[in-house]
């Protein structure tokens, strides 16, 4: 799937990608033992990553898990305390300046200029990246079209809605046709429809050969990624394609449906085999030790013993279960 995407990349960008890919084992980003400390606080703790080209690679983690710090180190904005980074074949932070032309970066906070219009912002970015005037005109036309900014061209960026701003930010980040796009929680201030459209755009970019690194704390977004790294307290706690992570979860997932969710929770809390439980509406998801031979029966018997009426089923793990399981070791509240 990933290979076909990479092969589908066309034009000079695609050729460049393939050429560099040959010398880089196909990885857009390689990081080894990446560590960043701020005083005594370790924000990122020996993270090792290999991010393949033309993939959408997700960083999933709660606030403060080290997602932003990792991204900032990968694009050379922060100097790692320890570890080695290679991005697009360049040593970072040593070659950070050379890397700037090849990457697009979208910050968590809207970082274009509020007091300039959409068109002025795009023109400014084009000039800063020294696109020649013909290419600038072509690219501004293209991104204006692609991100539906035509009718907003003369609006001040400060007057745009969250979704519109985000489209503008992505347009600006992709204006110079970067090989790698780093997006730091791009959808945190955006409505669901805009988020869906945004992800459509990301898939289109990946299909053209762009590697996309995106951090999020939304499960549904994480599930859309080709590959995923789950970060917790600065540590990489799980890594792989979301499907695989869900299939290979080393715990049983038992779903409990009951009108007496409080009672059910109480019962589950008393079972030593239950590693964690989370409530989703009227349903409870309990993560149970692999050692238990028939976990559904275990839960069912326990509930019956406490005379809590409930429907109990073994279910397939969803990404939230994976996330909870992965972060069990590092954060327990």
């Amino acid at each position, binding site marked *: 799937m990933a290979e076909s995407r990479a092969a589908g990349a066309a034009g000079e960008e695609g050729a460049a990608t393939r050429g560099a890919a040959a010398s880089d084992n196909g990885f857009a980003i390689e990081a080894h033992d990446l560590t960043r400390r701020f005083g005594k606080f370790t924000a990122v703790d020996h993270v090792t990553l290999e991010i393949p080209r033309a993939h959408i690679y997700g960083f999933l983690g709660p606030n403060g898990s080290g997602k932003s710090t990792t991204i900032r180190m990968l694009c050379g904005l922060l100097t790692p305390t320890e570890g080695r980074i290679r991005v697009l074949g360049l040593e970072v932070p040593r070659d950070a*300046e050379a890397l*700037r032309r090849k990457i697009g970066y979208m910050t968590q*906070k809207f970082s274009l200029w509020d007091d300039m219009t959409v068109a002025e912002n795009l023109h400014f970015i084009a000039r*800063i*990246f*020294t696109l020649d005037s013909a290419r600038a005109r072509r690219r501004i036309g293209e991104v204006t079209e692609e991100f539906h900014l035509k009718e907003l061209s003369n609006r001040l960026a400060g007057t745009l809605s969250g979704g519109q701003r985000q489209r503008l930010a992505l347009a600006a980040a992709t204006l110079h046709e970067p090989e790698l796009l780093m997006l730091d929680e791009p959808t945190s201030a955006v409505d669901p429809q805009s988020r869906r459209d945004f992800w459509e755009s990301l898939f289109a970019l990946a299909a053209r050969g762009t590697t996309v690194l995106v951090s999020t704390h939304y499960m549904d977004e994480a599930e859309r990624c080709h590959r995923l790294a789950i970060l917790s307290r600065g540590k990489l706690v799980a890594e792989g394609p979301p499907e695989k992570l869900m299939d290979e979860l080393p715990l049983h997932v038992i779903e409990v449906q009951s009108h007496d969710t409080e009672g059910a929770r109480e019962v589950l809390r008393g079972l030593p085999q239950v590693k964690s439980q989370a409530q989703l509406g009227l349903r409870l998801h309990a993560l149970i030790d692999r050692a238990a031979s028939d976990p559904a029966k275990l839960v069912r018997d326990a509930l019956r013993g406490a005379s809590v009426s409930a429907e109990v089923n073994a279910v397939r793990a969803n990404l939230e279960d994976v996330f909870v399981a992965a972060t069990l070791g590092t954060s327990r509240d």
Partner: protein
Amino acid sequence: MKSVYAFFTRIAAIAGKEFRQLRRDRLTGAMIVGIPLMQILIFGYGINMDVRHLRAAVADNARTSASRALIADLEAGQVVRFVQTVPGAPELRELLAEGKISAGLYIPPDFERRRLDGDRPIAQLMIDGSAPGVADPLRALMNLPPLERSGIRPALQRTLPGGQRTLEVLTEYNPERRTPVQIVPALIGVILSMTMVIFTAVSLVRERERGNLELLITTPVRSVELMIGKLAPYVVVGLIQTTIILITGVLLFDVPINGNVVQLYLGATLFIAATLALGLVISTLVQTQFQAMQLGFLTLLPSILLSGFLFPFDGMPVAVQWIAQGLPLTHFNDIVRGVILRGADLSQLLPSVTKLSVFLVCAVSLAALRFRKRLG
């Protein structure tokens, strides 16, 4: 070649952006015009200060014991301090034009005869009328108790009865000794200092606070390009303010512009750029706009007090003079008085021009070096 093109393209991009933002900012636009206009009207009226130890030169063409006594007496009064001896009056005029001295004492060859005849002034004191606070104390010298120490007072008193002057005083450049003539040119520098430093001091932190900087530093723009690009638009703003002050000065206060206007603008450009660069350095030191304002104003007071705007430079202790040497305003005041009032040529003011240029280059370099394209 390509990198040179990229260099200027990116500077132009930053400068263009700043211009655009400035144009949108109506209040700041109004302040660009309003502040200098208000200041010049408020401060356009005079301040006089008592002074001592003004630098002076002497051309003693008499070379008699009485002429030496005259020099000693003038110096003993502590208003002037003779730092140089020159052959004649033209040299004194030149030193005055260059701003190296505030007064020149010319003792004519027939000094002894004038002294004995007693019907003409015995010597001439040329005064630089362009510097504030200098002319008045010097003019007081003409009523000098005649030559006490030299022991020739009886003779003088006999020959110069009834308040007749010992010295003839010739005020150069500002014969009517109107304070606005001195104050208005100096106000150019003070007003520019007030507005320029703050413009650039807040410019980088404002972008940091608004989050723009995190984007900007991931682009290929280089620190020095960013600095020059941020500085350039405000040079134009500064020149607009200079023009407003000059026009007001000429129309309202009859300030004569004796020198070359193009040279005046060249000097102003240099000063404005140097002051903006100082603001950029401040901007790289602070984290918030509030801190930037505080530090910006911190530079303002020394500039006003030490640059020779209010107090003559020569009256200050040596240590303070050193500090004053580090302020762009000190050198600009020198240039602006030289060109506007004394009709001096920039080539005559080369030391000040050089110091301003050095300051500019150092400040821009420092700002560019201090500004890391890193977050940490």
